[in-house]
């Protein structure tokens, strides 16, 4: 799976523009098929780590890959979105196509590598190397202000990551190995955990991105080409959540418990603050970027609820957000390709001349809001249900944020799609082409599937969630929610207002 895009990327560099497009599309589709094969042959309830591939030691790190339920789902998300990205840039990118396609294929290699790495340093290598193609994608094919955005993206995320690297070196030295499954069973001293946790937090909070470390995201999104935004929102943002799930929680349970207040507090602020900011945006991409920050905050509160519902919910929100925000960026891309502006006020009344577009856009808007029946609902509900057991106050704030989310998304939709068709150039815009429908429809189908029957997505990770829960249960943070019948099972000790 890693080899195919890598080989194809090299092939792209040496082919014509049209050839590169086809090579990239075929390579990503092969990977998608491989991914589906992986999913169907994944043994639910079997060993924790499956499809392990160990190629021995290479100096300080070893080449070892393998997946568990979390990794499987995120790999699926990556391989699913990749062909979509290639398709989205089929006609929009005309400049240096070969290099563009190669950069995307390398990104795919690195993302799959990040999710499957079984070695601390290998993980870091994939994690960081992803910056290079993304830097080039934003820098070369981005908007007007692309150079500023690409620098900000690169340096901001690099700064977060180097601290994590220091922590990794310490851990490898302490445990004598950089093997992730072994480290997952290692108990680090509580005192050191706090520092390690903070170092990892610095990296993942930037990647995630959590408020107040999110400022790179709107810039990067606005300047990136459509497919760049899709991959950024769809997969790269998930790296932060995956990192929390893979490293912070199971490796430093005590520190996570101690610092839960920090994460929950920042997340609550993020949900409200970014939703309010999104409400006043005049740029469509910026609006969706801010909504991403709000959704990611729901992920973090779910993760740090320290119970099964929260973690499952967080995973579903990640997957759902990966699909929905990717689709929303595509929707923006569709009309951007026609009118070359992202100003909301330049549009209006699209429902009249682009009915099919309006329908799909409506579906994704609803999924983003979290309408029951869509993927967004399942995830947000589970996350908040998990959080409710820990803190009613935080849940209350986050729910308010979701209401605000409905407000800004509907407001966006109304301004773009409804109203009178007053502008001539807007009136001239054709409806979705077959290619665009082929891009958006599968995403809609999966989002709907996830909303109606989330079990397919919950099942592969159920056992891993149980393992994780067992691992962190010894350090469940004291919550401030009142004990209520039926909710008490997840919390051994509950004190009213026991937050330090």
């Amino acid at each position, binding site marked *: 799976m890693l080899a195919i895009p890598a080989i194809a990327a090299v092939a792209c560099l040496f082919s014509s523009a049209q050839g590169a497009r086809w090579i990239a599309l075929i390579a990503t589709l092969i990977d998608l098929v491989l991914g589906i094969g992986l999913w169907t042959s994944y043994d639910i309830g079997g060993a924790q780590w499956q499809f392990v591939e160990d190629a021995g030691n290479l100096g300080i790190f070893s080449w070892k890959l393998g997946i568990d339920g979390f990794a499987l789902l995120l790999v699926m998300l990556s391989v699913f979105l990749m062909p979509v990205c290639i398709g989205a840039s089929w006609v929009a990118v005309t400049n240096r196509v070969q290099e563009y396609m190669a950069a995307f294929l390398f990104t795919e290699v690195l993302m799959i590598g990040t999710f499957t790495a079984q070695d601390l340093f290998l993980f870091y*290598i994939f994690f960081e*190397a992803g910056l290079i193609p993304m830097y080039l994608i934003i820098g070369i094919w981005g908007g007007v202000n692309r150079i500023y955005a690409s620098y900000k993206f*690169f340096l901001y995320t690099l700064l977060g990551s180097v601290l994590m*690297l220091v922590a990794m*070196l310490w851990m490898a*030295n302490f445990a004598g190995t950089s093997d992730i499954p072994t480290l997952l069973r290692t108990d680090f001293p509580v005192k050191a955990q706090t520092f390690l946790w903070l170092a990892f937090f610095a990296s993942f909070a930037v990647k995630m991105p959590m408020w107040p470390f999110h400022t790179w995201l709107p810039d990067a999104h606005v300047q990136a080409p459509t497919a760049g935004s899709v991959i950024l929102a769809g997969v790269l943002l998930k790296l932060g959540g995956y990192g929390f799930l893979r490293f912070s929680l199971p490796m430093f349970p005590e520190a996570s418990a101690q610092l839960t207040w920090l994460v929950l507090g920042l997340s609550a602020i993020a949900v409200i603050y970014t939703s309010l900011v999104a409400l006043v945006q005049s740029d469509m991409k910026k609006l969706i970027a801010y909504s991403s920050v709000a959704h990611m905050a729901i992920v973090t509160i779910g993760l740090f609820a320290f119970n099964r519902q929260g973690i499952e919910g967080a995973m579903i929100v990640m997957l759902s957000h990966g699909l929905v925000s990717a689709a929303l960026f595509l929707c923006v891309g569709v009309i951007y390709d026609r009118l070359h502006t992202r100003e909301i006020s330049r549009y209006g009344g699209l429902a009249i001349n682009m009915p099919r577009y309006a329908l799909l856009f409506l579906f994704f808007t609803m999924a983003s809001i979290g309408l029951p029946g869509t993927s967004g609902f399942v995830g947000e509900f589970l996350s908040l249900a998990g959080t409710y057991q820990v803190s009613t106050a935080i849940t209350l704030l986050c729910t308010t944020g979701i209401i605000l989310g409905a407000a800004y998304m509907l407001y966006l939709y109304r301004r773009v799609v409804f109203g009178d068709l007053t502008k001539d150039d807007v009136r001239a815009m054709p409806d979705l082409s077959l290619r665009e429908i082929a891009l958006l429809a599968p995403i809609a189908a999966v989002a709907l599937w996830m909303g109606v029957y989330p079990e397919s997505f919950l099942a592969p990770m159920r056992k891993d969630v149980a393992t994780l829960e067992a691992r962190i249960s010894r350090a469940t943070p004291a919550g401030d929610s009142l004990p209520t019948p039926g909710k008490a099972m997840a919390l051994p000790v509950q004190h009213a207002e026991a937050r330090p």
Partner: protein
Amino acid sequence: MNMSLLMVLPEEILALGAIALMLVAAWGGQASTRMVSIVAVAVLVGATIALTGPASYGGDAFGGLVRGDAFGAFAKVLIFGASAIAILIAPRFFAAGRGDDLRPEYPVLILLSAAGMSMMVSAGDLLTLYVGLELQSLAAYVLASFMRRDTRSAEAGLKYFVLGALASGILLYGISLVYGFSGTTLFSSIATAYGEGRSLGLTFGLVFVFAGLAFKMSAVPFHMWTPDVYEGAPTPVTTFFASAPKVAAVALSVRVAVEAMGPATDQWRQIVIFAALASIIFGAVAAIGQTNIKRLLAYSSINNVGFVLIGLAAGTQAGVAAVLFYLTVYVVMTLGSFLIVLQMKDAAGQPVESITALAGLSRTRPGLALAMAIFMFSLAGIPPMLGFNAKVAVFQAAIVAGLYPLAVVGFVASVIGAFYYLRVVKVMYIDAPAETVEGAPLAVRTDPVEGGLIAVMAAAISPIGWLGLASLGGATMVAAKALF
């Protein structure tokens, strides 16, 4: 005695080869340049082959004046390799130069310098150290001003000479203090003297010796000559300066620190930590404003020496192994970057050195741009390039030694450094091709030898180089073991 002579076989080959070639050059004149160059490279190859003999395992020679061990051999391989490349790349640069032809003295001087460096890295005595250092430096001063008609080159040579003489003075003063308070110049006996307890005189001697060595390594605060000399010297010479003498100076410092002053680790560690952090931060910040690619690479080399010193600050066997690992990767990265600088020529074949001349390189010369991008990302320490592995190795050593603040500050400062490396990539990949007076830059085609070298080096630094990581790591461990 016989054994001793065998142990310095590489140095003998170099010295005799240099003298013989000098005679050839004196009688043959300009016409012999090509032949002298070829023979000089052969001499370096011969010296490298001689390293497989007792030079790499023999132990003390001449009563301890010189040591033949794996550590010295490892450093010598790097030094000889870099010297050979410095000779190989020269003809084309001078052929297109500003009227100063390549003269046969060039390879001879490089050989003499290599002999000096070879003595430096296997010195077992302060006097050997000093003689080796001076032999290397004197050849280097001449090389810096090799283009006689170019004022910048002359300025570089003079500046290098005056400041180098000052540094030598400082170093000699330190040596005299150490000798005065320990009564010996032999490293092993000095170590005993340091082990016997603190003495103010010995501490002073240590400070001065390290100051002198820091100059040779161009570590902050003794770095000020570096940008000017790098900019002024002919590019092949700069390539040489940035690689071989750097390796020699660092390896020598490691040897002095560990073999002669090992018992005083606590005393020199503060100096090394300061120099390391100052070099990393200063090298990174000062490079941001540079417009000349050679100056930029000069600051980059200051920056990199800082990272190397982090490994030394650990003061452990793993630290020394990390230093050697870093040096290896550094030499390849630096040689590669300078080789690309050598390709930068305008339509008339004149060398250009401004960073903006690289604009749009990815469209005009995609292969060259890709190689440069690999070197830049590697210098910045971004995975999956090998520069990342090298940085991790030195920081790992620092963390194992418990130097956490050093590791954290060093890493954060490396992000500042990433900015200017990134700028070079930006210029090449994002900016439009230069439409300046310089016309179409890089109009001249790349020489197959140089192109091949660039390709091999870029491949070695890219993830393809992972394949060699395990064996390189093993070699550095063996080499580091020789010191402990």
